[in-house]
């Protein structure tokens, strides 16, 4: 008696697609070996810090005891009950400014990374899927951007367009999209020729649909990890630009420009140390979180396996 069974190595493309799409989401939940992200103590700490900052940003007017722009005669007051983080040279309350600074740094960092991910991701998808000339052209363009240190290129772009918030964001998008383009492209390249893609094509699935339904879901994982890491970098680069006077215009409560103000007189340590600590905690939290995500999603970095 012969039984005709389905060939186990030629899976139904639909099934395979559903499986692969969940591959990185599944890892996140910890259904392969190891603990899920939210069971790693360090990641929990990072998530708590970020959650706290997010809350502070949303509730800033309630959290801050003073108007962040209000000047007073009480200049250079050291930290006290009235001014937890002291006041700066114009008598502005530093605690209130740090709190309101979260409303600038965090959303702007998110905007920078989302825009860069969107632009870089789309270009990477197209380059990887089409290959040949499109790929060549795009990769040379990324080489061009990679040829400069990020901060130098961002400074040049902002200085050329004029220093303000919009141009600082624009400059940081310009310097950060190529990373995503590279990552997505390489993920797409590694998929090219996979059976389920071939099958989909044979079934008459067009390139746009294939990119959207098959390629993107399978390549977005590493880019998301990278984006989390890059969030910290974006906060830092933005702070660096405004430290140099190329970010949001004064009197905006931006952490980088607050550090710059304090660096003029180091004996008034509180003026720059508190905004500096704000930058430090946010950047570290994003990095730890990104690290933890990568450990889950990229087997090459998995520990203890």
């Amino acid at each position, binding site marked *: 008696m012969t039984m005709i069974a389905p060939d186990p190595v030629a899976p139904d493309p639909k099934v395979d697609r559903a499986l692969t799409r969940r591959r990185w989401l599944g890892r996140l939940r910890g259904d392969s070996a190891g603990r899920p992200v939210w069971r790693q103590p360090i990641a929990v700490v990072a998530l708590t810090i970020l959650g706290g900052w997010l809350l502070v940003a949303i509730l800033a007017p309630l959290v801050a005891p003073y108007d962040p*722009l*209000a*000047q007073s*005669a009480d*200049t250079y007051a050291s930290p006290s009950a009235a001014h937890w983080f002291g006041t700066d*040279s*114009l008598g502005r309350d530093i605690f209130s400014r740090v709190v309101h600074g979260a409303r600038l740094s965090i959303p702007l960092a998110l905007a920078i990374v989302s825009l860069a991910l969107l632009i870089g991701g789309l270009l990477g998808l197209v380059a990887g899927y089409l290959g040949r000339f499109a790929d060549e052209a795009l990769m040379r363009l990324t080489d061009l951007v990679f040829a400069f240190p990020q901060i130098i290129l961002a400074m040049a772009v902002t*200085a050329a367009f004029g*220093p303000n918030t919009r141009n600082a964001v624009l400059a940081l998008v310009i310097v950060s999209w190529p*990373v995503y383009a*590279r*990552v997505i492209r*390489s993920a797409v390249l590694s998929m090219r020729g996979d059976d389920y893609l071939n099958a989909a094509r044979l079934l008459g699935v067009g390139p746009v649909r294939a990119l959207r339904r098959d390629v993107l879901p399978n390549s977005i994982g*590493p880019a998301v*990890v*990278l984006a989390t*890491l*890059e969030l*910290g*970098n974006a906060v*830092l680069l933005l*702070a*660096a630009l405004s*430290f140099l*006077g190329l970010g949001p*215009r*004064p*009197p905006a409560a931006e952490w*980088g420009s607050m*550090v710059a*103000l*304090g*660096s*003029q*007189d*180091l*004996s008034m*340590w509180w003026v*720059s*140390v508190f905004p*500096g*600590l704000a*930058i*430090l905690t946010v*950047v*570290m939290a994003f*990095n730890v979180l*990104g*690290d933890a995500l*990568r450990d889950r999603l*990229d087997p*090459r970095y998995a520990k203890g396996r």
Partner: protein
Amino acid sequence: MSVSPRRLRAGALALATLAVISTTACTAGGSGGNANNGAATTLTVNTSFVLKTLDPGRVYEATGLTAVHALYDTLLTFEGSDVGTPVPALAESYETSPDAKTFTFKLRSGVTFSDGSPLTADDVVFSLNRLKNIKGSPAVTVSELSVSKTDDSTVVVTSATPNPNVPVVLAMPSTGVLNAKAAQDNGAKDGEDAAQGDTAQQYLDTNSIGSGPYVLKSYEPESQVVLEANPNYWGEKPQFERVVLRNMDVQTQKLTMQRAESAEISLDISGKLLDGLPESLQTSGVQDTVYFLFLNADPAVSAVTSNPKFNQALRAAIDYQGIAALYGAGAAPGAGLVAPAFPGTLPGSEASTRDVPKAKALLAEAGLTNPTVTFNYPAITYKGVDLGTVATKVQGDAAEAGITLELNPQPLTSFLDEMRGGKSPLGFTPQSLNYPVADSLINNMAPGQATALRSGWTVERAEPAIVAAGEKVTETLDLAARATAMQEWQRLMNQSSPYIVLASNSSTVVATADLTGADYSAAGWQVDVAAVGRR
């Protein structure tokens, strides 16, 4: 991809940590000076070098002026911090004609150059003609002067127009007297075509041929300039055998002075940077810089700033005392355009004061509700004060009166370009004088003059009384009366000119406790190193 995120993360962490650590950590640059070797003989002067040349005919920068003043004698000079009364130097006396056009100088006898040869009237005539004719930056101060000798020890300087301040000009380091023969041997020319023919700068950068208390030992424009006592000096020998001018940024100067024990001076620690210096150090400062706002008087540039009522309202809105406090201990609230260091300044009792209700009333009178103006300023730190902090304070003050200023920090070059183009509706700038005579303010800032036109301030747009008051200053030849006329001009300027003087700030010499004579001079040379001694 596997590498870059990790590298990025490491970099990000390092930078974030730096952002915090850099604000608390201290790293010292230079040594503490000359603690052991030659402690008795070397004076160290730390300054952030602004140095292009040591050629008296071309020197225009602060560091160069300090050195040239020690290398070359001038006909007259100033002592200590005073810049009001020129005192004899190479000239033992001088006479001024009643029309303030002719000045006769009697030269001191027995003066020799550092090579031992005698200094004569020919050397003075050569040096002043060369200064005028090579047309370097400082030539503008002598462009109306001509010079001749009547005998070997008498020099006559004539001015094309009446100018009672010629003696002050002849105390400036650029009028230093060179050894004419040595200069000519090395390419110096004094004829009317000297601008093309003179090739002495290179020689004069590395050799001194003057009669001053010091001679040039070495010249390294990036790092240091070393002076040694002139063995043939005709006057009283300076106490220090050697003077070393060291190039040092201002933060390092502060750290260095905190550790310095003896024979050390810093020239750039001023403003807020003076806070936290050890009590043992001595400071000498003079308020020689004014900071002012300029509002454009041209309605085509801004209908708001050209409105006289808005001008008055902004004047009344500003907290002058609070702004002076931002500049630190050596500052004062703005009184007039002439800084307190110079003759003709307004007394501190006439400092502008704040009146917010008056500002609001003026705005209402003008029918302006929530006027909004772009406020340009150079994003720099000048004499220890961040101009952005002051601009933010002005913005806060104006907001209380209902005026919105949109801060627009600019790189210095863009700021200057926009200002020169006359397109800035509202701007903010410091101003120091090139030589200690306030007349140049009238030549530049009176209605219709070059600087005034950059703010759209034509004679037609100005009060006739201001024009007349400015003319009165230049017509007055008696120096005391001229200073009074200058004050009157400033009072009128404070009522309706495009300039709002915010504050005046000091330049400061910081010196170790063992030194004497380390006085700041607003005459250009900052400190007379030859006058510095030990207790």
